[in-house]
């Protein structure tokens, strides 16, 4: 007990110092002066309470860890048994897809709209999961590719009149090209450099979009991006010259909700396609190579895999998914500006991947839904959103780096030591 007292005092003192310096006082502007406001006794009471809690925890830390150790040996989180059986799982997936397809016919317009946004984040999460979760490459500039995709569609449309369906493959290809060109020099190096270079890339893209005013409209963005058409049927009240509108073709009354529903179903199909493509890729040699490379670089090279080529393929494929998601985002918003593509977006998508369990598709999908719906449900939570995301990343890495729903595979491991 005595040996613990000193570290406990130290930890408590540290807590108090950290809290007092940032939470206890606040800089405030009064006219042209900046003054320091010392918070009231309630704040300081809270800080002292926190210090006491830290002090007590330091004293009983050993015991808490032992209890946790025991608890961990006992139970482990498992998927419900019915999800383990392949046939039943397929049935469950079919039911879920059916429910998702029915959803827009039952829900309100605003709910459908939010669901579309959620699906875009699902796509982004799945795409980043290929890069971070499967290939183990930390990409902090994922939003850069998202922006490239969105702007490719918006620019092609406003300058050359490309429709969504004409621009989509170009947007996917364009982002893949960007990913290839960026990845090529960096992926030969150690992983850490990739993190910082992609971070820089995301910033460069945003700065360029903001400053190339003649081309991109700068901070004003690009407005009036048309929504996609359904086999040349347009969703506007009045179709353009030479086109038919959706409601005229089917002889129903015009309803702006049709457009929202169509975008939702479109996003759903794209999200499902992305999920399926990645699911198949994971079972192909290339997908196996991604994971193998993540686990052991040297072993892979000795087996004749070219690490740069393997990493580059993951990076490029991940980027192209972001480009497709970006195009859909541009079509949904109808207006894009550099403000939609800040580092915060990259951080949100990364938090989704981390929370869902790196490499696990189901986990990432559920995490994307949770992360986008939570701020919608609890508005007051919005202010604390980024704080929580940062905290989640740290805590997940410390306690459960494999995520809440980790990818499970039969495996054997050599026990060291």
């Amino acid at each position, binding site marked *: 007990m005595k040996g613990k007292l000193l570290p406990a005092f130290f930890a408590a003192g540290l807590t108090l110092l950290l809290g007092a310096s940032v939470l206890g006082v606040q*800089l405030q502007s009064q006219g042209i002066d900046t003054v320091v406001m010392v918070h009231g006794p309630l704040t300081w009471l809270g800080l002292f309470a926190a210090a006491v809690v830290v002090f007590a925890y330091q004293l009983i830390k050993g015991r808490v860890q032992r209890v946790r150790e025991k608890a961990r040996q006992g139970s482990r989180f498992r998927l419900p048994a019915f999800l383990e059986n392949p046939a039943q799982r397929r049935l469950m997936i079919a039911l879920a897809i059916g429910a998702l397809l029915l959803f827009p016919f039952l829900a309100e317009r605003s709910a459908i709209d939010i669901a579309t946004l959620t699906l875009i984040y699902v796509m982004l999460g799945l795409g980043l999961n290929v890069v971070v979760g499967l290939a*183990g490459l930390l990409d902090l500039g994922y939003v850069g590719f998202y922006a490239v995709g969105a702007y490719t569609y918006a620019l092609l449309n406003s300058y050359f009149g490309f429709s969504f369906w004409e621009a989509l493959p170009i947007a996917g290809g364009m982002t893949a090209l960007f990913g290839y060109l960026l990845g090529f020099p960096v992926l030969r190096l150690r992983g850490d450099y990739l*993190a910082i270079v992609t971070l820089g890339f995301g910033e460069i893209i945003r700065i360029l979009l903001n400053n190339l005013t003649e081309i991109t409209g700068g901070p004003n963005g690009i407005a009036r991006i048309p929504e996609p058409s359904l086999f040349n049927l347009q969703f506007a009240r009045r179709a353009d010259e030479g086109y038919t509108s959706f409601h005229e073709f089917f002889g129903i009354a015009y309803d702006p909700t049709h457009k929202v529903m169509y975008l939702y179903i479109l996003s759903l199909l794209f999200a499902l396609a992305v999920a399926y493509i990645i699911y198949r890729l994971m079972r192909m040699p290339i997908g196996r190579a991604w994971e193998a490379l993540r686990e052991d670089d040297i072993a892979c090279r000795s087996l004749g895999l070219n690490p740069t080529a393997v990493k580059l393929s993951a990076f490029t494929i991940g980027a192209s998914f972001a480009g497709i998601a970006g195009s859909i985002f541009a079509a949904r918003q109808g207006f894009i500006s550099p403000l939609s593509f800040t580092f915060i977006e990259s951080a949100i998508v990364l938090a989704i991947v981390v929370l869902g369990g790196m490499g696990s598709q189901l986990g990432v999908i559920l995490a994307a839904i949770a992360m986008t719906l939570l701020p919608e449900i609890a508005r007051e939570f919005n202010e604390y959103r980024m704080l929580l995301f940062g905290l989640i990343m*740290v805590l997940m*890495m410390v306690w459960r780096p494999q995520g809440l729903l980790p990818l499970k595979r039969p495996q054997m491991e050599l026990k060291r030591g």
Partner: protein
Amino acid sequence: MEASLYFLQQVINGLTIGSTYALIAIGYTMVYGIIGMINFAHGEIYMISTYVVFIVIAGLSMLGIDSTAFLIVAALLVAIVVASAHAFAVERVAYRPVRGSKRLIALISAIGMSIFLQNYILLAQGSRDKAIPSLLPGGWQFGGDGFAVNLSYMQVIIFVVTLVSMTVLALFISRSRLGRACRACSQDRGMANLLGINTDLVISMTFVIGAALAAVAGLLLGMYYGVVNPYIGFLAGLKAFTAAVLGGIGSIPGAVLGGLILGVAEALTGAYLSTEYNDVVSFGLLILILLFRPWGILGKPEVEKI
């Protein structure tokens, strides 16, 4: 003549900013040298110390103390203590538990910590710019009829303080016992541990030293620009990291050289192209250096042992 004076002015401005980049870059390069990870939260430590400097200066001014020297010294000391405490706590909470795991895990933990700290300050102190009046206005002017070169007192102080800090650091690393332990750890942490060096302590001290230098940078830049907001740490951290890579990560003289080169490159971009492209140029520089000389200007190529 005028053109060359203008150029000289830009170089002076660039060296000023560059030396503060160098101070922040030391934190990245030392941590990278010892535990081989990018401490993304380091930029936020710099931001926090700038806030502390402002709080101390504004607080003491409110109490009626107007001795400039006292204000600066007090702000510096408090900022060093608080920044070190933050860095120490960050290492304990977010980095030490993941030290043995894969590199990706540590990186995600670091980026999470950076996001957390930025938003923590944002919530605690507000997102608006906070300003303090300049404590040391004025300077020297010299040169021609058309264009006069300005060298403010603050710029001279930045050079001198940076120079002194770097000398002290160099002496500390090369002469002191802890400095020797640091060097041993960066060569082979496992072996150093076997030989009785408390590597946990050395790692903690590395974070503390880096934070102390970031606090010095926070004081200097805070007084130079006179404004602070919660977002300054992100970009400053990125720039400083670029400087560290440019000079050769893991090398302390490299960090200084990289910082100065980056600062001058940015000032020249701002002067002859557009300040909007400052960041584009520095990241472009980073990508170029990684392409052709990934070990940096003063670094040694990394030999991979299996």
